[in-house]
């Protein structure tokens, strides 16, 4: 539990919005150890999603360093970043972002298409079973409830067997009962040894994590 799998040192992110320079994140230090479940909370505009996107290599920091498994990410070319995203990180989005013409099974399999590898035997069934989606295998997204769609999105993030799952407001579009079920699922995944970083508005649910990090105005104020 002591080995750090991901760390950020002094990372900042600024955007240009019209003539205005927006500092979304200011010199943040962050790390997560293997098997840790971290919730990031904070008001809107505090920079929590930006932090998650930077850690997930979905965009590049304006300054600062990010290391994954001790490897410096700054300066890496796109193919190396893609490789790291494929191998180490699974991403879950608030809006699910499922492809509407693909079935539940195909949506879950989608990352395998890009990683050009086949899942180990039984992996897809294992993931669907874990998420309680086996009976929905051939359904299309529009035939699913919000909770089911988010579970498909989680399945998609798990299929490549990443070391860490990052979720950006995963319950933002769900009712409270379903949100709790999703967090229970995250707890279950964490109990299986998976590291998780979850960004949420819901402080109650955030409390289910092993560590809560609070952000305000682009900086960490607690955790």
């Amino acid at each position, binding site marked *: 539990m002591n080995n750090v799998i991901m760390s950020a040192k002094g990372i900042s992110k600024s955007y240009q919005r019209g003539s205005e320079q927006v500092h979304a994140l200011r010199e943040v230090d962050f790390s997560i150890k293997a098997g840790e479940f971290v919730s990031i909370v904070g008001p809107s505009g505090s920079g929590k999603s930006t932090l998650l*996107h930077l850690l*997930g290599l*979905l*965009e*590049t920091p304006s300054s600062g360093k990010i290391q994954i498994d001790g490897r410096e990410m700054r300066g890496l070319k*796109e*193919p190396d970043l*893609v490789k790291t*995203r*494929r191998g180490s990180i*699974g*991403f879950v*989005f608030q809006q699910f*972002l499922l*492809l*509407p*013409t*693909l079935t539940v099974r*195909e949506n879950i*399999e*989608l*990352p395998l*298409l*890009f*990683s050009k590898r086949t899942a180990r035997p039984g992996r897809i069934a294992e993931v669907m079973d874990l998420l309680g989606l086996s009976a929905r295998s051939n359904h299309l997204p529009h035939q699913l409830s919000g909770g089911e769609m988010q579970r498909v999105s989680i399945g*998609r*993030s798990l299929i*490549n067997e990443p070391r860490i799952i990052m979720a950006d407001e995963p319950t933002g579009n769900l009712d409270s009962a379903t949100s709790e079920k999703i967090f229970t699922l995250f707890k279950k995944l964490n109990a299986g040894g998976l590291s998780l970083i979850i960004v949420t508005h819901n402080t109650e649910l955030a409390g289910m994590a092993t560590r809560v990090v609070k952000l305000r105005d682009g900086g960490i104020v607690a955790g």
Partner: protein
Amino acid sequence: MNIFSLATKNLLRRRVRTGLTVAGVAIAIAVLFSLLSFNAGYERQLSGELGSLGIHMLAVPKGCPYEAASLIIHGGVIPKYLSYSDLEQVAKIDGIEIASPMLLHQFFKDDKPHIVYGINIEEQKELKPWWKIEGRYFNEDEPGVMIVGRGLAEKENLKVGQVLEFGPDEVPTTIVGILERTGNQDDEFHFLPLAATQRIFGKEGQLTTVAIKARDVSRIAEIAKKLEEIADIQVVTMTQVMGTIMNLVGSAQALLFSVIIIALFISAVGIMNTLIMSVNERTREFGMMKAVGASGGDVSRLIIIETLIITLIGCGVGLIVALLGSKLVESFVRGVIPYSPTGELISIDPSLVFICIGFALAIGLLCSIYPAVKCARLTPMEAMRSDLE
């Protein structure tokens, strides 16, 4: 699941838009294929028609415009004539194997033009050894007889032995033979002995042209030069005829090709517009794909494959439409251009199919490169936040 099935499913999401884009490509390819086929077929038929004359050059009256002289082979009538002394001078030139005099006359029956060729039958049989006849040929000085082309016979329901009243004086003339189908302009003509034609139409001693066959094709230029020295004669070689006719139809062809280019341009712009719209709408999806492990190349490949599927299906549909509609295009084009050889003008050549497929692929690639490159360069979050422009 593979990238092709993913691309196909993406396309099926917006069936109407995909269908309309396919239709746009299909129309462009159908027009391109039809016009290229027509161009190839026209030149081949024209060349075949000139070859089927069995002659190397025509001696025509001086001052006769090339265009008119060129149209003689298709039954065009010119208002100037050669004399028998011109014929004698032509026949004396060394290197000429056959110098066959002809008188052409055109008359109208039921508002339809009919072409009469006054010929020396024995010389024509030598020039056109492929002629075969139902019935018999007429003799050189036989009065009141004629042979007709197969196409004309079928159109007018003419039979061997039938007697027609011919010319301004309605001279009874018996059809003694009907030519077997030649596939060229001869199928549409009346052929009479030269002297009889001159008599019937009041052109005694007058000739429209002298068809010349050289003994040796390498001497055509030399013979043409000698012919030009005869005061009343100008020479049109078959190469010149071909060139003149191609020039005549050139302007019509230029117009048609302009139409194609505009059609193709509009189609390409339409495809690009559809594609960019489709990519714009799905930018967030592409961002998601990148977030779950797709590289810029994977996203580009998906966009390019989607476009190629559209253009290749459009190409296939366009080719089928062009093949099914070739007769329609042929009749339309015949109405537009000033000179059409007989026979099928649309030539379906496999190489043209490959040209059209190549063209469709080129359009597809051209239209997909911009959105594909643009999308590939975005970071996952840029893609999820923004729209392409």
